[in-house]
């Protein structure tokens, strides 16, 4: 294979003693060719990122030395001395990271940081370097390259930072580019642009790209070949079509089945009275200053929403669109400046003190990050029982309810006496749901509640929500940036942008015939939407993920 640029042969990365398994990456072999995009896909902990770091020689020090071979241009990178390897990796193999803002040094101008690559590996003059950097900025489609050259990272958006990182990576026209979840932290429209950019660059430079992701949509969008990893091992590898449409392995199939589709939810009958009527909600953030003035941002700008009993209202939009602020206003974790909130017909916006605390029972929230949403020093049983206790239930009854809920959420009753850190992310999110449901709310707000979860776990949690809703009949305000998820579980969807709801409707009509340009843009940006798969036939709940295995 003359086109082969980089090949990984039997790579193993040992884990420190006491970890749940001996190797983070075990016996991995794969290769990437000239002009090829190889996607490595897998859930968290599958070892995909460590594979990239091992290739670059950037493994954290607490891990042991990797074994096997990483062959690049005939040399085994693993056996090279540090300086030679550094020279090759900087010049010929480049890497971009998941969090572009954190990957840029905050105290240097971005132009400087890109120039550094040239200064290390070439003997170009300052002026030449500058010209090259600005050309690169132009190539990665950064606006005002001259100005950006002199900007600091914090002055750029996440997408711009990622473009700067890509510019850095492309500076010396590398043979191989390793991209570790480069779009995960970005908005869907930005992601689409970056993916497009990468495809263009591949076409122009013939770079071999190893693209690490957990998102099958992204895979469908850009991959030539796909490698699926699980627990440090390669499950299967093949062309995009092979893997996405004709997977051989069970694991791959289960994963694919769990990926939500853009198929709209069937319309439901029998939704009850409104549990939430929010009218004219306004929230302005002012950068506080001693002399008044300051900059004001209308985070929520005159928004109305209504949710009926048993209904799921989806709120979609990009980061900064105000959807979380709206949710926090509704639940009064943030005080709206104006607007009426009626919950089950009762005023909620005007309450304060004890009355507010009592009324809080009716609205509960489940957050995005299950790792920070539970008090780390409280046993989960107590966490779940706390709400009922606050609202006057005696301890014993509260405890009983907590145990029932644990069970209902698919957890063992004995887990009540364990602490949050003993649970996986998906389990924790179930506990959060149990805690919220313990006070028997009328309305549940799910604020990106499944965004941080692996796809298989995501499917389970979504199913749990749907099941519980069916049983208890509460309304859900479901906030997400993922249109697939939204379309799958929402009865109605509102699209938010710059604090306003620009369009609303049921999933079928909204996604079938969007009226607003913005909605169209959002839809267009959904990665891999052309990819049709047959996962909808499978029940999401049948997927057993790594987390759930004892």
């Amino acid at each position, binding site marked *: 294979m003359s086109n082969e640029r980089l090949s990984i042969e039997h790579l193993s990365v040992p884990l420190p003693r006491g970890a749940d398994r001996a190797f983070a990456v075990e016996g991995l072999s794969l290769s990437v060719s000239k002009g090829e995009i190889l996607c490595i896909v897998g859930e968290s902990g599958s070892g995909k990122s460590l594979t990239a770091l091992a290739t670059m020689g950037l493994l954290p020090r607490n891990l042991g030395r990797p074994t096997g071979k990483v062959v690049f241009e005939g040399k085994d990178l693993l056996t090279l001395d540090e300086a030679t390897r550094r020279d090759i990796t900087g010049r010929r193999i480049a890497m971009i990271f998941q969090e572009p803002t954190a990957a840029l040094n905050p105290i240097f101008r971005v132009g400087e940081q890109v120039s550094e690559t040239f200064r290390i590996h070439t003997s170009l003059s300052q002026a030449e370097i500058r010209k090259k950097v600005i050309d690169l900025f132009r190539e990665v489609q950064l606006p005002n390259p001259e100005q950006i050259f002199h900007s600091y990272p914090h002055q750029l958006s996440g997408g711009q930072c990622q473009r700067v990182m890509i510019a850095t990576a492309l500076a010396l026209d590398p043979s191989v580019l390793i991209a570790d979840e480069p779009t995960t932290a970005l908005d869907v429209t930005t992601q689409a642009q970056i993916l497009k950019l990468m495809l263009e660059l591949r076409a122009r430079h013939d770079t071999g790209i190893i693209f690490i992701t957990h998102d099958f949509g992204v895979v469908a969008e850009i991959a030539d070949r796909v490698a699926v990893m699980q627990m440090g091992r390669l499950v299967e590898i093949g062309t995009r079509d092979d893997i996405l449409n004709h997977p051989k392995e069970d694991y791959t199939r289960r994963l694919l089945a769990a990926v939500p589709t853009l198929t709209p939810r069937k319309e439901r009958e029998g939704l009850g009275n409104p549990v939430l009527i929010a009218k004219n909600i306004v929230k302005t953030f002012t950068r506080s200053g001693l002399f008044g003035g300051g900059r004001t941002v209308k985070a929520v700008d005159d928004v109305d929403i209504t949710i009926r009993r048993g209904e799921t209202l989806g709120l979609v939009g990009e980061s900064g669109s105000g959807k979380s602020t709206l949710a926090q206003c509704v639940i009064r*974790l943030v005080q709206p400046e104006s607007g009426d909130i009626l919950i089950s017909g009762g005023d909620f916006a005007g309450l304060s003190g004890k009355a507010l605390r009592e*009324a809080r*029972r009716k*609205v509960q929230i489940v*957050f995005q990050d299950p790792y920070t949403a539970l008090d780390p020093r409280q046993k989960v049983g107590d966490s779940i029982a*706390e*709400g009922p206790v606050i609202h006057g239930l005696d301890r014993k009854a509260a405890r009983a309810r907590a145990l029932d809920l644990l069970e209902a959420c698919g957890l063992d009753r004995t887990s009540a006496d364990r602490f949050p850190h003993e649970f996986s992310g998906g389990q924790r999110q179930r506990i959060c749901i149990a805690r919220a449901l313990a006070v028997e709310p009328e309305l549940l707000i799910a604020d990106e509640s499944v965004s941080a979860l692996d796809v298989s776990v995501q499917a389970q949690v979504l199913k749990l929500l749907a099941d519980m809703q069916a049983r208890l009949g509460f309304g859900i305000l479901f906030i997400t940036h993922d249109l697939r998820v939204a379309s799958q579980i929402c009865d109605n969807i509102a699209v938010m942008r710059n604090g306003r709801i620009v369009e609303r409707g049921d999933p079928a009509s909204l996604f079938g015939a969007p009226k607003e340009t913005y909605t169209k843009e959002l839809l267009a940006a959904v990665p891999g939407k052309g990819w049709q798969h047959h996962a909808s036939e499978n029940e999401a709940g049948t997927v057993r993920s790594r987390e759930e295995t004892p």
Partner: protein
Amino acid sequence: MKRVSPVLVFAIAVLAITVVVAIIGNVFTSHGMSQQNLLARLKPPAFMTGSNPSFPLGTDRIGRDMVARVIAGLQMSLSVAIAGTIIGAVFGSAIGFVAAHFRGWVEELLMMLVDFQASLPFILITLTLLAFFGNSMVLFIILMGLFGWEKYARLSRGVVLSAINQPYAKAIVALGAGNGRLYLKHVLPNVASALIVQVTLTFPQIILLETSLSFLGLGIQAPQTSLGQILGDGRDYLSTAWWISVWPGLVIFLVTLSMSIVGDWLRDRLDPMLRARTT
């Protein structure tokens, strides 16, 4: 969990022994801390020639048993440091909690107070107040208690702010919990470890501050004694009767060292997010 390092074991052992000695100290010697024996002045410790077997660590300039002195000094130094630390930690943390809860002008005002405190070297304040109001045990304890409050206030404000912005705190508010439940039951246990690390830093600093004040004659006054006072008293004798100051010096050193080791260990065990702030 990782294997416990022998250094940590040593440190914890030192602290445990110190506390035990301070509590049951009097069984180690038959002499009282102020009992003098003018015929056995400046006796060297047992392992030197010319020593007196009933004074294993030697005697001071008026023939008092160094074992009894050091134990009494330890008791006083520990009491002062504990009282001072508790007062400072409680007061400072309370200020930090209040500032973090109310935000706005309350926070501005309190943080200005913190700045004010931080703008003056503490020993300067101590000396000044002792000069204006005269030395008394009550004032002394209050002063030691004020020591470091601004550090606790800054620290607790910071960690409380970040704690109450954590989803778990929001979720608890959303459950309808009042402030008391939120701060005492949820926030406090979660910021406690950061505060405990700060305690391991201020505790030895109070001992050292008291030592400096004793050197200047403004520390614990005779007939009471403290490690710092014994150390200060013995300084003229360093070249002839080193044991008077070396024993208390050694105890101060060991306690400080052990506290630092334990503090470092605690910090390493903490959330890395807290690590930066507590240093």
